[in-house]
């Protein structure tokens, strides 16, 4: 049903313009270019071209790479920083883009993420400009293709300080260099998110087509202006457990209020509208969906995370009403939805309405839905009630020693169609500082990786550490992570969990969207539009 991205890329013919790259000063990259241009030069079989390239020069390239990196380091900052000053934009906010990639401060970032094309062309770097890092990314691509030439796949590299994870998705190679001590599995999942965020902007079909057309294409042309969205995603990944748990965090709300909001959305519809989503403070208030669309597919938490990030990462949405194509990769990686995005409470901009349509031309009719929603909400004074909604404190559970928890239920009604959710109280003292919050999240991440290990999964972990005691527990009904004060006894912890589970049961209507409402935008269930999509 969502439309195919045909038109989007036609005007950006990849061959139309040879985007001149900054002059490469490292011999390794020149070598790499020779290699990639060989593979480009239209040999009948691309595969054999690749193989040939490696057989002759693969070994040489790698040793060259190793050597030139040494030289580069020996040269110090003088030489390597020059491309920075030449290409760095003089205007704009201070950004990680302009960092000196030879400085210690650059090396000390907790997590680097790089995206490059198979030809070794930089697409994105979280810190430092892609130009300054082109040789580093060239090395990454050389490692990937070198291992590939041995009929094998590179997965990761470990040092005492870093975990480097490589992953390839279609024509894109994504690399995470992390000192966070997260598991490879988690880092790989994060890279998949980065890939999907790129797909959400371009669609997978376009990316594939572009690189089929021209292996050397500089994808940054199409991603210009989206760096912030990827930056925002990576900050979210580090600071928000939603992505770790693959679940959506709802803002706690009296079920009566949530129901009436849902009803407002349910009533304000127009043909081809498929999802109406209400967000407050970057958390979900409610989501209603068109019946027929979700019959065979559902909105995955990951798609919603990408959407929330897109909105949260850019203040551009705070101005006026936005109409933009967006692809939801888990729903369908090759098609666009058209998103209407508008804040309902300017200038505070905390309550945001997102309406997703499959019709590119539906802006005015969808904007009309917003008007109706706005009116209805005004009548009910809903904005005021929403403004009062906030996260809860763990003290409300009434269990001493319990400092924090994350609870993800599996026993929701209509489970297979339900959006996976989790609930979690605010992080309070001693986890109020940025640093301590990150530390607690890291502890949760550790337990998550052990409990969900691919080869050795566990049912329960009880971890007594110096500054806290943690318990992680997975059953068929829920997944639970709890954090206690360090001196809690095992008996106390077990009792606390019994109490906590009882409390959640009691509060579940407030904490979760129990029955996501549905609507039908077409009087006759649109069998025809369905067949259009396939």
């Amino acid at each position, binding site marked *: 049903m969502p439309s195919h991205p045909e038109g989007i890329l036609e005007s950006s013919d990849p061959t139309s313009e040879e985007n001149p790259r900054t002059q490469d000063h490292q011999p390794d990259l020149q070598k790499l270019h020779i290699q990639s241009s060989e593979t480009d030069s239209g040999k009948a079989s691309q595969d054999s071209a690749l193989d040939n390239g490696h057989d002759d020069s693969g070994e040489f390239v790698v040793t060259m790479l190793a050597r030139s*990196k*040494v030289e580069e380091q020996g040269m110090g900052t003088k030489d390597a920083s020059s491309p920075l000053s030449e290409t760095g934009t003089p205007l704009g906010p201070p950004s990680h883009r302009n960092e000196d990639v030879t400085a210690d401060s650059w090396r000390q970032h907790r997590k680097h993420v790089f995206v490059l094309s198979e030809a070794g062309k930089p697409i994105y770097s979280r810190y430092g400009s892609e130009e300054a890092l082109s040789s*580093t990314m060239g090395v990454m691509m050389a*490692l990937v293709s070198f291992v590939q030439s041995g009929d094998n796949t590179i997965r990761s590299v*470990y040092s005492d*300080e870093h975990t480097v994870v490589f992953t390839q998705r279609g024509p894109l190679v994504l690399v995470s260099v992390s000192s966070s001590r997260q598991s490879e599995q988690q880092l790989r999942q994060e890279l998949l998110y980065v890939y999907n965020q790129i797909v959400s902007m371009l669609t997978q079909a376009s990316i594939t087509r572009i690189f089929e057309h021209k292996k050397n294409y500089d994808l940054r042309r199409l991603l210009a202006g989206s760096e912030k969205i990827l930056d925002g995603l990576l900050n979210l990944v580090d600071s928000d457990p939603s992505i770790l748990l693959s679940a959506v965090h709802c803002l706690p709300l009296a079920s009566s209020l949530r129901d009436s909001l849902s009803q407002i959305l349910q009533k304000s519809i127009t043909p081809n509208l498929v999802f109406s989503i209400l967000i407050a403070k970057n958390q979900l208030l409610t989501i209603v969906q068109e019946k027929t669309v979700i019959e065979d597919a559902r909105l995955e938490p990951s798609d919603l995370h990408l959407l929330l990030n897109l909105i949260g990462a850019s203040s551009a949405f705070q101005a006026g009403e936005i109409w933009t194509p967006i692809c939801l990769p888990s729903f369908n990686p090759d098609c666009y939805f058209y998103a209407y995005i508008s804040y309902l409470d300017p200038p505070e901009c905390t309550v945001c309405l997102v309406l997703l349509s499959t019709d590119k031309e539906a802006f005015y009719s969808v904007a009309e839905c917003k008007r109706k929603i706005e009116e209805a909400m005004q009548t009910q004074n809903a904005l005021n009630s929403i403004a009062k909604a906030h996260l809860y404190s763990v003290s409300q559970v009434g269990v001493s020693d319990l400092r924090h928890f994350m609870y993800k239920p599996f026993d929701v009604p209509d489970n297979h169609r339900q959006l996976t959710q989790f609930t979690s109280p605010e992080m309070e003292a001693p986890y109020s500082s940025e640093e301590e919050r990150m530390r607690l999240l890291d502890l949760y991440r550790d337990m998550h990786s052990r409990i969900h290990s691919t080869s050795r999964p566990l049912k329960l*972990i009880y971890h007594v550490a110096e500054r806290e005691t943690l318990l992680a527990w997975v059953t068929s009904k829920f997944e639970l992570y709890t954090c206690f004060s360090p001196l809690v006894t095992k008996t106390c912890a077990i009792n606390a969990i019994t109490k906590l589970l009882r409390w959640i049961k009691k509060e579940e209507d407030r904490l979760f969207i129990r029955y996501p409402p549905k609507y039908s935008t077409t009087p006759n269930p649109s069998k025809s539009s369905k067949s259009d999509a396939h």
Partner: protein
Amino acid sequence: MLMIRPRMASGTQEKQYTPSLLSFFIYNPKFGPREGEEEKKILFYHPIEIEKNEKIRNVGLCEAIVQFTRTFCPTKPAKSLHTQKNRQVFHEPEENYWMVMVVRNPMVEKPNKDGKPPTVEYQEDEIIDSVYGSVLKQCYSMYKLFNGTFSRAFDAGGVELLIQKLEKFFYRYLQTLHLQSCDLLDVFGGIAFFPLDKMTYLKIQSFVNRVEESLSLVKYTAFLYNDQLIWSGLEQEDMRILFKYLTTSLFPRHTEPELAGRDSPLRPELTGNLLHYGRFLTGPANLKDPDAKFRFPRIFVNTEDSYEELHLIVYKAMSAAVCFMVNAAVDLSREFCEQLDSLVGPQLTLLASDICEQYNINRRISGPEKEPQFKFIYFNHMNLAEKSTIHMRKTTSVSLTSVHPDLMKILGDINCDFARVDEDEEIIVKAMTDYWVVGKKSDQRELYVILNQKNANLIEVNEEVKRLCATQFNNIFFLD
């Protein structure tokens, strides 16, 4: 029906392959810095029959990986490379000397019908880096024990001598690596200590003192019983690798003849008389043999400072074994060996039977052994003391454990978690098989317990481990 048949067929013929050594190489990038000279970097490469360019490529990849990680932290380069098919572990024991071990991931081979080649699934997460990293470090330590450092060999005889030494040592040594049975004990590389009452311990100490006094050539002594250490004059790190050599290589080679009864005492005239059961495990097999050679293995200790080269004399009487270490500059004569034999032989025989008696008394006191509900591994980082009821036997050929390999890997995981922080910690986990695994770390000591009480809850498990700590470890682990 059609669907079921092939699945059953493949199910029955699935083949499981354990991890195995794919290659092992040692290189120094400084030895062939120029293009076209890459081969000169390679000092050792196993398997030897690999084609030259292939060797150069594989070494080149390691260099590139190491350099690449230096971009992000110049002082902490790569330790391992994970690929779909194998795991490569890197170790730089001496500056610019790199050792690399490539281990093939365990895999499952599933046959396909219609004569198609079988599908191979690599189990990429089964290998624990810390275990194989330790095995690689052990390879170096073992080499160094018998050959000294790489750079000493290079200084003495250039690349040629170094290559010769490496080939001579590793050709044999690599065959003794059994990668499928490596586990947490390899990470600890600990020393099993023989539990002993004070009186017997003092007897042993005075024995050592007496011998060192009479045989002034003896620089260091180590005393073992039942493959467990009682007394050592060596530095801990040197003793650790010597202990490994003795218990996994030298002793097992001699126990088999003993068990087969072919090993009669050296002095048949004294058979039946518990006076002299002593014999040399290194050096002359038979002192009476006029052609006997008085050559002992040489070992290198204190390589960090005084760099001593020593003769290693291992002398054994019944279950007691003593290592005497003598400066390698001294030529050991027949006279010396005879003197040692006549002095040590009777005393050691007597000591061995004393220890044995004492040991049996202690066992009787502690009551008949019944199969406990738990198995454990204990390790103390301060004195390298190690104790395991999980491993039934550890020899050159195989390490037999009494628990499922997955549980052993969970122990490895917990150990990795402990290694991250210096603080005291406790981790209790319940595996998918409902086994409980408990790890405790307190003041440089680590204890791992596996409990086979599937229906127990967390509190009962805790009580059980508490009891164990009280009886076996004097309540060292007092958390909670």
